[in-house]
């Protein structure tokens, strides 16, 4: 791997050590939080205030500024989990295990948010709280995939075995996500006819698009923050008998 600069390789190896990762997280968190809040502020201001009212949907379309970024995050996080799982299985990296399991509840939360906000958007638009449209149905199945990871990890007592199990599950799941998505989309078109739902591909105005992208970026920073918070607890639990944790307690 001589194309990768030396300092990056060294950094990568350093982060594999739990105490380094732990202290690095603590150093990063204030910065991540600051950036997140700025992006969130700008995104919400742009989305809720600056962006013009939609011709067809009125102001209810503004739900898009949480619904779509949340849906994007729900997919993004599962992919991150799968990558972490791959790294864990191939290189047996403890931190990869931690990242995987720390991301799961956050991914599930984003999936939940996507579903709930989808319902709240759909009710005034289509008159019902739930529609079996392709996106929502795929999101629902994705929620089950997340819950599967969380349940499996909780059910296996030895956490090292549990980590390997969820790594395998995440990899199997990620391969299936495009298949599930395609098949659900196909299934949906059968019973829908030629009408295109407004949720699927809004032809979007730039003033409406920018806050959306800002919110999406903000959510990525949020993911880093939340994941690191969970990861810190997970690391402490796994490493509770080590010297560095004991020293951490004494330093308090």
């Amino acid at each position, binding site marked *: 791997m001589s194309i990768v600069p030396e300092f990056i390789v060294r950094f990568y190896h350093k982060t594999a050590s739990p105490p380094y990762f732990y202290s690095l997280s603590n150093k990063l968190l204030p910065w991540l939080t600051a950036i997140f809040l700025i992006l969130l502020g700008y995104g919400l201001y742009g989305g809720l205030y600056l962006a013009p009212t939609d011709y067809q949907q009125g102001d209810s379309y503004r739900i898009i500024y949480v619904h779509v970024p949340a849906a994007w995050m729900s997919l993004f996080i599962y992919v991150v989990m799968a990558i972490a799982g791959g790294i864990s*299985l191939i290189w047996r990296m403890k931190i990869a295990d931690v990242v995987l399991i720390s991301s799961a509840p956050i991914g599930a939360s984003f999936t939940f948010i996507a579903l709930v906000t989808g319902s709240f958007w759909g009710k005034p638009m289509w008159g019902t709280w739930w529609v079996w449209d392709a996106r929502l149905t795929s999101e629902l*199945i994705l929620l*089950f*995939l997340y*819950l*599967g990871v969380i*349940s*499996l990890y909780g*059910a*296996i007592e030895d956490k090292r*075995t549990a980590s*390997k*199990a969820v790594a*395998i*599950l995440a*990899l*199997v*799941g990620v*391969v*299936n996500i495009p*298949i*599930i998505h*395609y*098949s*659900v989309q*196909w*299934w949906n078109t*059968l019973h829908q006819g030629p009408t295109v739902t407004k949720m699927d591909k809004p032809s979007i105005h730039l003033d409406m698009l920018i806050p959306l992208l800002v919110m999406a970026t903000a959510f990525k920073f949020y993911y880093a923050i939340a994941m690191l918070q969970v990861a810190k607890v997970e690391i402490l639990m796994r490493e509770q008998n080590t010297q560095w944790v004991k020293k951490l307690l004494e330093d308090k």
Partner: protein
Amino acid sequence: MSLMSAFFAVIRRDLILAFRRRAEIANPLFFFVLVVSLFPLGVGANPKLLQIMAPGVIWVSALLAVMLSLDSLFRSDFDDGSLEQLLLSPHPLTILVMAKIIAHWLVTGVPLLVVAPLLAIFLGLPEQALGTLFLTLVLATPVLSLIGSIGVSLTVGLRRGGMIISLLVLPLYVPVLIFASNAVEMAGNGLSVDPQINILIAIFFMSAVLAPLPAAAALKMSVN
């Protein structure tokens, strides 16, 4: 022992063991018939409604029946230690797992092939769809065993893995359910089912090649 003879030895052994517990084989079958029968009781005996629902009802029930039977894939071997022996074998575990999956399908999938068309007739499925129903079952029940093996191997070490297996495996079954039941529905309407069947064939080959690998990896991890 060569790999080929080991492969067939595993299949033969599982079939013999299953034959000795013939009554247990019947259980998923009875469940299948029961669940299908519950639907008319639940939604009313309106023949038009039942006919519309028939493909989905048969396929959901088949899915559930296979899922319930998955535990038998590794459970008894895990309990009596023969699973560990299998893992110690010099032969690649992936191939041996494939052998067990084949045996499982022969024991649980094939009976469904026989019974499902009868039930379909009771639900009023048009006769022209029966051939497609049979074809989808032939293509997709092995896939159910293949994908199911991943879920079972991840949980074989757990004492009460039952409910978790459904959570792990059912989302992965969704594409199969969609294409299989839709194919039967289209056939009932006299329409072409080529795309659906082609996709089912693709899914079959994909799972046949890809599923035993994570199943074997998960077994190694579960048993140790």
